């Protein structure tokens, strides 16, 4: 039941682990990768939550577990107040209409043997929004116009389009069913700079029209800053810092966030950084995470306590949470 103060999506302590198996006759689990280790956040209508982090931090796994392309190992995924985490595939059909996903690479997410019209009518027919393909074509012509394409593109195949146009088609496919939540997994990473701006602008326009919530997954900090209302910065499966976008980008508190933001170059030659917080090394293996705080092996402020306990998330400012022993309430 929908009430006014209910969130569109609420993720509570979401966990996803993958077993690593070994052996030929007696296959057994030798280790576990905690790809997502207890993250919590929520998304309102017409708002965007940005999930940021470097490769291997678990951001894509988190997105896929939320939409149940992967089975979450623990935690709750509340869509309009109902937990879909334990639900079976069959029970999920009605939620599938509410939640859609757009992947990074439109070349591999569109079937090369289906025309745009065929690919886009599938969700319409499956969810009984239209009765037949003829009706579908009428709906789709309008839809293509709304993503900046032409109705005659319906009879073309994906290879006849450029990368940016393909991503428009993938976005059109996601919005055929008027979803209330769209998961965008690096939707602009494969695109050129001038096309990236087109797609981001398109996504903003669609959000206003559908009043949809976005989960925007990206490693590109500038894009996340532009599109997100709130962000969560991930490191080895956990949030190190989360909350209001401007607050985090303007004064990051966690040493990792500080290093990450300082490492990113800025398109202004006068702003060349002399990097004080440059961190060495690389992200440790998620199979063998350090004890205590996962970031302590690269952290310039590491203390004794950091090796013992993982720090709790504490709210240092209004809607600005950080998980670090340097900050105590």
């Amino acid at each position, binding site marked *: 039941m929908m009430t006014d103060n209910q969130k569109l999506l609420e993720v509570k302590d979401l966990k996803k682990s993958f077993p690593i198996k070994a052996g030929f006759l007696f296959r057994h689990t030798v280790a576990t990768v905690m790809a997502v280790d207890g993250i919590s956040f929520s998304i309102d209508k017409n708002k965007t939550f940005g999930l940021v982090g*470097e*490769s291997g931090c678990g951001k894509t796994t988190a997105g896929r577990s939320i939409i149940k392309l992967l089975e979450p190992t623990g935690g709750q995924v509340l869509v309009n107040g109902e937990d879909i985490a334990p639900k079976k595939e069959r029970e999920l059909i009605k939620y599938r209409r509410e939640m859609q996903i757009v992947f990074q690479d439109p070349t591999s997410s569109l079937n090369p043997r289906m025309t745009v019209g065929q690919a886009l009518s599938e969700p319409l027919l499956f969810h009984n929004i239209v009765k037949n393909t003829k009706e579908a074509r009428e709906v789709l012509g309008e839809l293509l116009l709304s993503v900046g394409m032409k109705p005659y593109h319906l009879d073309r195949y994906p290879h006849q389009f*450029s*990368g*940016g*146009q393909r991503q428009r088609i993938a976005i059109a496919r996601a919005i055929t069913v008027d979803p209330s939540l769209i998961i965008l997994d690096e939707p602009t990473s494969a695109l*050129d*700079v*001038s*096309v*990236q*701006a*087109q797609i*981001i*602008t398109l996504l*903003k326009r669609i959000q206003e029209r559908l009043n949809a919530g976005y989960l925007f997954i990206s*490693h590109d*900090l*500038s*894009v996340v*800053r*532009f*599109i997100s209302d709130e962000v969560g910065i991930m490191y080895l499966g956990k949030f190190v810092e989360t909350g209001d976008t*401007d607050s985090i*980008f303007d004064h990051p508190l966690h040493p990792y966030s500080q*290093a*990450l*933001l*300082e*490492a*990113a*170059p*800025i*398109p*202004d*030659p*006068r*702003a*060349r*950084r002399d*990097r004080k917080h*440059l*961190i*060495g090394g*690389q*992200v440790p293996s998620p199979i063998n995470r350090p004890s205590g705080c996962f970031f302590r092996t690269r952290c310039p402020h590491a203390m004794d306590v950091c090796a013992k306990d993982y720090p709790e998330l504490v709210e240092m400012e209004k809607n600005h949470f950080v998980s670090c022993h340097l900050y105590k309430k």
Partner: protein
Amino acid sequence: MTEPILKVRNLRTYFSMAEGTVKAVDDVSFSVHDDEVIGIVGETGSGKSVTVKSVCGLINKPGYVAGGSILFKTAEFPKLQENGYVDLTKLKGDQFTKVRGNHISIIFQDPMTSLNPIFTIRKQLLETIMFHQKIDEKQAEQVAIQMLEKVGLPNPKERLENYPFELSGGQRQRVIIAIGISCNPEILVADEPTTALDVTVQAQILELMKDLQKEYHSGLIFITHDLAVIAEMADKVMVMYGGKTMEYADVYTVFEKPQHPYTKLLLECIPRLDIRQDALNPIPGQPPTMLNAPDLCPFLPRCPRKTAECLKQVPPLEQIGDNHFVRCFNPFGTKVHVVNEKRADE
């Protein structure tokens, strides 16, 4: 100013395909001095990689250098010398191996594919050093260890025995850089060296390249699609689009007073990390396809400043200010007609 060590003049590199000719590089000119970082920036298919591959003699069939010259200042090939320069497009057969690796070295984007997975780091690093410096294995090993130390790889002695898969992406890129600088080249070419890396590792590699460049005083040609990385690294910037040089100037001019409509629009459409923006101004339209492209300005279909003249011919690359070149009939600002037009920054 001293003479440049590399002068690329009106370079054209074409690929003949069954469907027609792809003019991947079509009239590109730039120069590289000692101790200078030239940034080449452009989108996919703009010809930036093909430009530097031509400079390194790495264009294979069906590609060929169709025109222009690549003048390199060197003492090699006394027979081909002209005022101290050798035109690299005139080299035959394996003559190029005297230049590549030794005088001009290239670093590619993906460190996994540019190292051979079945040989150890020792084998791959020593091969280059022994081939070009003509020294024995023992001396070469000393050089190799020094190089790995220079690029900040811990335990260089043990790393020599590793296979590429045993190293992380950032470490592999460090090994590639070590191979690249091992023969102390006059020019180092880096083709998107940090694109495959995470942002914190990218920062490490960029800092490393800046330090090495300062130490070796070599020329660096740095290619990327990322304007932020260019702003960080380059002294001079060449903006490419559709195989052509669109604008060429020092980094401050390009970022602060761009004159070409493409450069200006491109800078306006990138999201910024350091400030909150309410909207982006995307450039409408698609990047050009290069197959049988018409002989017109490649940006024409997307350009808001096109004039009747643009529909007739390709604009030439014209000098409009101090070391500032623009290929446009209708650039921003007032056009300065330089009477004695000089070639790109000589």
